[in-house]
């Protein structure tokens, strides 16, 4: 019974919760709140975020956070493959929008942040990563960008800030010859971005490296692989299985009936 609940819950997470989480990130990643009239502003993901998302997905595959061969395979029914493909697509767009959420909208800062992301992801491609380390590293990466954009830069350029903050903003603008020029949004934008990133990281934690396979399908696959082996290898395989069986029967405790006979 417990096993049945587990299987049902896993299916709910995999087929419904995960796509919903990633699509919510896709929806909120480009949402800003205007500082002037508190109206919604929808920022379409810039091209660079798609490039960054591609790099990130490659990193997911390299870090074994996603095992593509387990998500999409010809052994599975088409509906399952379609469902998995949608989940992976929603992950790609969520990644793109997560970058969009922490990238400044224009100016020199936009290019600085983009370069910072590009450089980090490119370096990570050649580093050793496992899934847990990868999620940790991404949390730090997005967290840093969030703090820089929504806390430090937003505070410096806030219209209602103190004179000291305004002075620092003016100095920064002067030093950069007016190339920084970040767009100022209402504080609600920071809260939306925080929620979006938390949801994205939560989704990554919930994401299984590969969906569990049907045991019967797995058995069929093993039998088919066995039958595809050359004669010598098949004999070797049979011998290994027989040896294993003997070891298992030797390790089994004698039944009460056997004891009585002695």
């Amino acid at each position, binding site marked *: 019974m417990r096993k049945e609940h587990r299987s*049902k819950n896993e299916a709910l997470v995999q*087929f419904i919760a995960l796509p919903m989480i990633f699509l919510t990130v896709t929806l909120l990643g480009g949402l800003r709140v205007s500082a002037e009239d508190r109206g919604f*502003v929808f920022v379409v993901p810039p091209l660079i975020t798609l490039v960054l998302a591609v790099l990130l997905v490659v990193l997911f595959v390299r870090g074994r956070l996603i095992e593509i061969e387990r998500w999409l395979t010809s052994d599975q029914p088409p509906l399952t493959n379609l469902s998995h493909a949608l989940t992976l697509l929603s992950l790609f767009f969520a990644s793109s929008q997560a970058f969009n959420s922490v990238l400044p909208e224009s100016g020199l800062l936009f290019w600085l942040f983009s370069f910072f992301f590009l450089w980090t992801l490119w370096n990570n491609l050649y580093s050793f990563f496992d899934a847990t380390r990868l999620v940790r590293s991404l949390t730090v990466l997005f967290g840093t960008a969030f703090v820089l954009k929504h806390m430090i830069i937003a505070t410096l350029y806030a219209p209602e800030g103190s004179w000291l903050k305004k002075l620092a903003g003016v100095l920064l603008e002067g030093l950069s010859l007016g190339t920084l020029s970040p767009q100022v949004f209402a504080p609600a934008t920071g809260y939306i971005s925080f929620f979006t990133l938390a949801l994205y990281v939560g989704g990554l934690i919930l994401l299984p490296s590969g969906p569990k396979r049907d045991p019967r399908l797995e058995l069929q696959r093993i039998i088919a692989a066995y039958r595809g082996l050359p004669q010598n290898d098949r004999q070797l395989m049979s011998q290994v299985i027989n040896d294993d069986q003997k070891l298992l029967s030797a390790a089994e405790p004698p039944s009460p009936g056997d004891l009585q006979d002695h």
Partner: protein
Amino acid sequence: MQHRLIQVIGVISTALYVAFIIWIYAAAPRSFKEVATSAEVTVGTYQVDQEKFDAALRLFRQQQYRAARDEWQRADPAQRDARTQFYVAYAFYREGWGRVYNDTELFKQGLAAIDRAIDSAPSGSLTIDDPDLQMHTPAELKTELQQGIEPSLSDFNPLKVFRQRK
């Protein structure tokens, strides 16, 4: 069987959510109220607030063009009603018209409004039967607005001050 049902629900809900995201980014509403209005426009149930439209028309006839435009904006927040947009353009024309020179900025806004009216008009044609107006089709009004902002030799004609506002 249950897994299959969960998968079907997952695929359908994902497809609907994707459609919603594409729609919201295309419509780019500024508030939750605009989200509702845009949804009404999409499903075809959008209607102009007739009371506000009539109130605006009264203001228009009293030559209070700015107030009339504000009221029409409230009557047609999605700017999708051809008739309302025609009147908005007319209000811009009347306010911007001058005996010596026209207000180019107001005329440009009038052109934008008349373009919206032409886009929203069913099968592209619209005729307003209002005896108070001298122009009854978007084409007439658009021509008048365009001529008003284009510089020409006739601008130097002193007899121009005797022309009449339509």
